[in-house]
């Protein structure tokens, strides 16, 4: 854009403005044509079965890649799908989803080729991103032996993406909200998945929720109110 005629810039920007609003009007119209009650039903409230914790990456719109419609999935997306126990932001989402919406499943979804994970293993000062990305460096340290043994750089980085997802599942299971709800209701169940751009498919890391919960509660038992 740099060096362009300001009038051209204005025109270009005006077009992308119109595009979003035009697209939105079209989308709304299509839904009303298919089902005149669509937005009335939506206005009545939300009862999503799922909470999705995914990466902010623009290529992974959760609803689109799982084929779900509006109203079906509660969503939190941040850099590299992290769940940090001192982060009020993600903890508010987990709390609201589990205690108020009573979701049945929590999905932590990472993706291969994650820029956040790549940035975290770069030997570089990232400024404001340092405190956030530090959590991924900690995941590396927890699995240092396994990761160091992988000679192929791409494969090592893919494995770190997977291990990061598993660690974030653990962090969710450590919360009082999840442990207390599961004790009472036998939900939510936590799942760890990875999205691959090669084929557009989701891979289940099969974390084994119940066993993981039991293992975690040996030390982090918050199930008693």
């Amino acid at each position: 854009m740099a060096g362009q005629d300001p009038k051209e810039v204005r025109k270009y920007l005006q077009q992308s403005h119109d595009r979003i609003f035009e697209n939105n009007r079209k989308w709304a119209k299509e839904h009303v044509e298919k089902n005149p009650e669509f937005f009335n039903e939506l206005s009545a409230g939300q009862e999503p079965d799922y909470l999705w914790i995914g990466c902010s990456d623009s290529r992974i719109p959760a609803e689109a890649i799982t084929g779900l419609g509006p109203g079906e999935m509660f969503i939190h997306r941040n850099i590299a799908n992290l769940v940090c126990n001192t982060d009020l932001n993600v903890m508010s989402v987990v709390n609201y989803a589990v205690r108020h919406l009573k979701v049945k499943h929590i999905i932590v979804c990472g993706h291969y080729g994650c820029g956040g994970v790549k940035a975290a293993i770069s030997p570089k000062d990232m400024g404001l991103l340092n405190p956030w990305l530090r959590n991924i460096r900690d995941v590396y340290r927890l699995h240092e032996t396994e990761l160091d043994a992988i000679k192929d750089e791409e494969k090592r980085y893919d494995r770190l993406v997977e291990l990061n997802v598993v660690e974030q599942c653990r962090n969710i299971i450590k919360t009082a909200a999840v442990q207390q709800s599961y004790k009472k209701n036998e939900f939510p169940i936590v799942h760890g998945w990875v999205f691959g751009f090669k084929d557009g498919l989701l891979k289940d890391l099969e974390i084994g929720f119940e066993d993981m919960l039991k293992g975690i509660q040996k030390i982090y038992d918050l199930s008693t109110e």
Partner: protein
Amino acid sequence: MASSAADAIERIVAGNRVYAQKTTEQDPNAFADLSKGQWPEILWIGCADSRVPETTICNCKPGDIFVHRNIANCVHAHDNNTAAVVQYAVGALGVKKVIVCGHTRCGGAQHSLNDHDLGETLNTWLHPMRELRRKHKAELDNLPDDDARAVRIAELNVIQSLDVLKQHPAVTKAINDRGLTLHGMIFDITNGQLRLLEESGGRRANVGLWSPS
């Protein structure tokens, strides 16, 4: 419980297979192109509410919008999570626009109309929104009902979030260096339409959404 729980997961696994197949049918190179990287023009900060899926309601494609969604689309000054998203999107990816989008019937906004105890975590997260209610009490009291009051709180919260964003170092720099623009919107769940908040630019002039100031 066990069987229906498994069904819910099977459903989205099947949904994902359909997505992958359809995408490849429409464009055999779609995933090869996506795996090369992302160049989104927009950072979207929206509510976690399941009824406001940004890419769907804007009829956009994967790769178009970088996304952060939290309870009631709040941008708080001392929140590392949002700050990291903004730093990455604005500083590293160089998005051209940042949108903060609130919505009607927002649970976070409705809960901000009173001080009912939601537990310590949510009470703390919503505290700035509840403060907005106190600050704008006279205006809110004049509105006809709680639905209208919740919409107004959602609007005030979008405007406040934009003000916080303007203090973010990457945003300040990008506004000065390359004309990054910030925009406030409300998604109306009752009719599915996006509405631009004209006062979100700090003035009430009727500016076009992407017009550089």
